[in-house]
């Protein structure tokens, strides 16, 4: 098992945060978001604003308008919960802010719904200039953070996990902004996944392969702008598309893919993800209940294929 993407984020910030323009804000969750890794190394450019998420977003916008590259960090639910501040002070203003939401999804477990980011992508995806990144493993996270510090201009939402993630990529991986990675080739079915559940998608794809169903597996780290070309190309070849995400299927990856397909390549689509409020339980029990672990994803795909 590899690292949680929040841990990779903390490491990458400490590494690439040598750029003096980088400023980190956190709202009393720095031990959890791992922004403390940066704070310990660069205390002068680290600000714990206390439990003031709305103000933190506005403050980040101000810093960005004066040339800084601010990251503002909290749990995904709390930071995107300040939507009005995001839409006007960051989005409409086109402030070069990186909004970081950790503890994404029902996978956080026992704390329950109020701490689970399940609609965070849905809210910020509606803003025309918002970039949304959700890495699936350590290498992808480090590369994404480096890209956000060294290259990207404009508002960004970066979504990270609490739980450890299996490695999807191996050394030598190169991150290409806006482009889907093909993790497995196939022509019977397309599986498109993002973030922590890419592992579940790969599990399902392997099990399907053993039964003679070859899946084309796409990993989407850039949810907005989404890689329309790769999605359409794969869907045209396979004729069946499944999306997998630990987020509401309304407004998240499933919706984004549905929009592309219905406009450019109408295709049968199964969206796997959350359809109700989350709850408390161990991460394992919750993934079992909501069908987001490998066997759960496999079972949903199989019954859909049979239908």
């Amino acid at each position: 098992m590899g690292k949680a993407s929040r841990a990779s984020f903390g490491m990458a910030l400490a590494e690439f945060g040598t750029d003096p323009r980088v400023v980190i804000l956190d709202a009393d969750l720095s031990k959890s978001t791992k922004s403390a890794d940066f704070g310990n190394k660069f205390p002068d450019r680290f600000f714990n604003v206390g439990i003031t998420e709305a103000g933190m977003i506005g403050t980040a916008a101000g810093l960005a308008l004066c040339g800084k590259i601010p990251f503002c960090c909290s749990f995904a639910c709390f930071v995107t919960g300040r939507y009005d501040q995001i839409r006007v002070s960051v989005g409409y203003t086109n402030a070069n802010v990186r909004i970081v939401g950790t503890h994404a999804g029902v996978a956080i477990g026992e704390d329950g719904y109020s701490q689970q980011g399940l609609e965070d992508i849905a809210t910020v995806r509606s803003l025309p200039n918002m970039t949304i990144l959700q890495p699936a493993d350590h290498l992808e996270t480090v590369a994404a953070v480096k890209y956000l510090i060294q290259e990207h201009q404009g508002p960004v939402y970066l979504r990270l996990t609490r739980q450890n993630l299996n490695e999807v990529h191996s050394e030598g991986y190169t991150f290409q902004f806006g482009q889907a990675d093909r993790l497995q080739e196939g022509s019977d079915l397309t599986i498109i996944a993002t973030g922590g559940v890419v592992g579940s998608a790969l599990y399902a794809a392997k099990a399907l392969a053993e039964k003679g169903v070859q899946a084309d597996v796409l990993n989407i780290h850039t949810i907005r702008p989404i890689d329309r070309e790769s999605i359409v190309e794969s869907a045209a070849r396979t004729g069946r598309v499944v999306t997998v995400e630990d987020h509401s299927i309304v407004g998240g990856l499933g919706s984004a893919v549905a929009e592309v397909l219905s406009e450019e390549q109408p295709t049968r689509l199964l969206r796997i993800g959350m359809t109700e409020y989350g709850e408390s339980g161990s991460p394992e029990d919750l993934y079992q209940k909501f069908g987001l672990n490998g066997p759960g994803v496999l079972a949903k795909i199989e019954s859909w294929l049979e239908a």
Partner: protein
Amino acid sequence: MSSGNQNASCCSCHPTPDIDQLKELCRLMRIDIIKMLHKAGSGHPGGSLSAVEMIVALYFHHLRHNPKEPLWQDRDRFVLSKGHAVPVQYAALARAGYFDPALLDTLRTLGSPLQGHPDRLRCPGIEASTGALGQGLSIAVGMAMAAKLDQRDYRVFCMLGDGESQEGQVWESALNAPTFKLNNLCAILDWNLGQLDGLVADIQPIEPVAEKWAAFNWHVVEIDGNDIEQCLAALQEADRTTDRPTMIISRTIKGKGVSFMENDIPAWHGVAPNKDQTEAALQELQG
């Protein structure tokens, strides 16, 4: 899990509370909290233990409520705005008779009514679903306004954390409540000096606290919130305050009752005690 239906409903029409009995309840509820968090393997001990005396003063003396009829129209409302401290409320609800104390063992497990943070749709006695800090006082303001609109005499109580009171929304409600003359509203600040990343004073200081609330036109009472008699007296003072809402600034010790938690506040915000720590804590509480 030690159980015992100490009491059904209690209320302020009982003029002389049995202080010894209430103190014993505090001790038993601290034991409940430690046991349930250890069993769950996660949760927030520090801010649950600090609030015990006030929660006991409310549920076992001051509140007008009926555990057998949780939705009784004229009940007093209590909103736990610092929802992560809900184990202390679950202990009180169980001992007051809202549900079987055996359920305390199911805290935070799949399907349990005892969610990691308060869920009003799953657990009897929970008035508002909280857990996103900063929202509870606004809900309490709305409940107090509804009482006025309906000419009902129920009172509304709301407990906040000191870290929580950094949230801007808290101060919006602080403005609203005196404007609407909500003398039926009593807020309680569990001022235990800690928040998640460390001490409030080191992260984002909120002092002077009493002066802030007074400047917002609240009646302010300052007490030692780990003294049950002072909790009871402060709640009575809130009742007697007829021209404005009351804020009880309740100075408490985070992790109260378990010395290794009291001595390392930041370490015990959101971590459950392991087996050895649980044994040590229980030994201290069981004396």
